[in-house]
């Protein structure tokens, strides 16, 4: 049960309420990290649970993410100053040749709400760009999205690029998207497959050892 004002605002997709609740909590001396750990993450976890049992749908996820981002915009500068560490670092993008980004955006939002530091490369991302970003941000996880069967081979190409560069063992690579299957993920050597956005957060936590 989400009972605090910030958590309820996030759960209800209320951006203005989330910002107001965050400002009030900070003014009352609540620690930024505690707001994330104690309010935001549980609220986003609840959003994910409601999505999995089909009480919430993609629009509700996006409204909740929007509210969460409004609060995070106030909290992140404070976290940076305090040296607090994220749950993990993720580089995410839609693979080369594919312009679809709804699923990828959802995963990125939920990962952010789950305490991950997320670097979103957008859509149509070349393997080299994933490689460079993973190195730049010291990513724990690289998340690849594809919505078209014709672009799924780009997932394989991206994993191969990491292998050729000797960087394969430095990251966990997870894949997802409508045409992607667990079978395909195994076939191309991915570390994980997620069939929806909230499962991606659980998977990411498991892969960084924070579940």
């Amino acid at each position, binding site marked *: 049960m989400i009972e605090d004002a910030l958590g309820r605002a996030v759960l209800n997709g209320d951006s203005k309420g989330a910002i107001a609740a965050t400002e009030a909590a900070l003014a009352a001396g609540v620690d930024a990290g505690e707001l994330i750990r104690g309010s935001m993450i549980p609220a986003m976890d609840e959003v994910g649970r409601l999505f999995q049992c089909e009480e919430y749908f993609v629009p*509700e996820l996006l409204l909740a993410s929007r509210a969460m981002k409004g609060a995070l915009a106030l909290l992140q500068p404070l976290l940076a100053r305090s040296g607090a560490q994220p749950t993990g670092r993720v580089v995410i993008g839609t693979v080369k040749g594919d312009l679809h980004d709804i699923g990828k955006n959802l995963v990125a939002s939920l990962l952010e709400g789950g305490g991950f530091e997320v670097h979103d490369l957008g859509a149509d991302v070349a393997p080299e760009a994933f490689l460079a970003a993973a190195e730049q941000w010291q990513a724990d996880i690289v998340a690849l999205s594809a919505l078209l*069967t*014709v672009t799924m081979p780009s997932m394989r190409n991206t994993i191969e690029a990491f292998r050729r560069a000797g960087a394969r063992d430095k990251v966990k690579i997870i894949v997802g998207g409508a045409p992607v299957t667990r079978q*395909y993920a195994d076939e191309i050597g991915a570390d994980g497959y997620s069939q929806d956005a909230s499962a991606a957060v659980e998977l990411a936590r498991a892969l960084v050892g924070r579940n």
Partner: protein
Amino acid sequence: MRKSFYLDLATSGLRMPVGTDLVLHEHPDADLVMEDGRRLGLVMETTARRYGTPLALSLMDLRLEKRDLLRLLGNVDADVDTFHFQEAPSEDQVAQVRALSAAPFAKRNQAHLDAVRYVAKETDLTAVGMAIGPFSLMTKLMADPITAIAMAGAGLEPDDDPGILMAHRCLALAEAAIARSLAAQIEAGAHAIMLCEPAANRVYLSPKQIEAGSDIFERFVLEPNLRLRRQLADAQVDLIFHDCGELTDSMVKEFATRLSPSVLSLGSSRQLWKDAQLVPKDIVLFGNLPTKSFYSDAVMPEEKVESLTRELIARMQETGHPHILGSECDVLHVPEAAGRISRKVDVMLSCAKRAPAPAT
């Protein structure tokens, strides 16, 4: 509209894929074919004759109306795939597009029209034009349409949020561009139009909000489509309404009962035999084998295609609802899986052939 024509096709046991893209890519210069109306028309004709159907479907190129719209707005260098409005289009821009309804088309769009014309004038086939639907085109004009629609669904108004204003204006632009496209295809001789709304689904439109009484489905999907339907009806052109997205029962029922298409084409997430209970019996259900998976033998082996086909046929026969067995959407050419896909389409079309039901 000639519903009896499609009902008779269903009674005859017709099966067909939306297969124009497959045949198009048998040409090594497919890109050039797409800009040559006569050659593209021949592709439509070849597809229809290969699959034994009187319906010659245009290529399902759902970028055409966006490409035309951007050109009408003077954005000739814009990338069709990635262009999104950064702020709400102005009322002047909407008026501009409406005023240019008779402007010439660019080469690719003109080829689409000429292909329809070729089929209508030089073959005995039924020329079926193609267009994206207004809601789906709106979503392609915005970077984040879902949040905008969700905020509208939460009760906010255009004055409350720029995203909602953008959605309304983009929808107006979309409808104007599609109305122009439909008029041109009608003039070219299209007897039917397949109006494609893949985005009008529960990803973009919250079932929770709709159930709670929000009018977003009515306002953003049904109203503009009803106007386009009237445009077709006034020209005595048949409506084939296509939505392969994940739908609620209520959405399927609304499409059927409010738009009253001659044919309702649905994706593989639906169980057509259950939808038969929601759809009036004068509307043919089309589909809905999971052809998006045909590229993979691991996911969709031929045996599974056959078993799914047999199941669908048997279950639809039990309902007594008119049905044309077909693909869940455009069967796209996948270079490394072309033969595999073709074989499965053939399995879908040939297995468990039954004798046509006697005419009523």
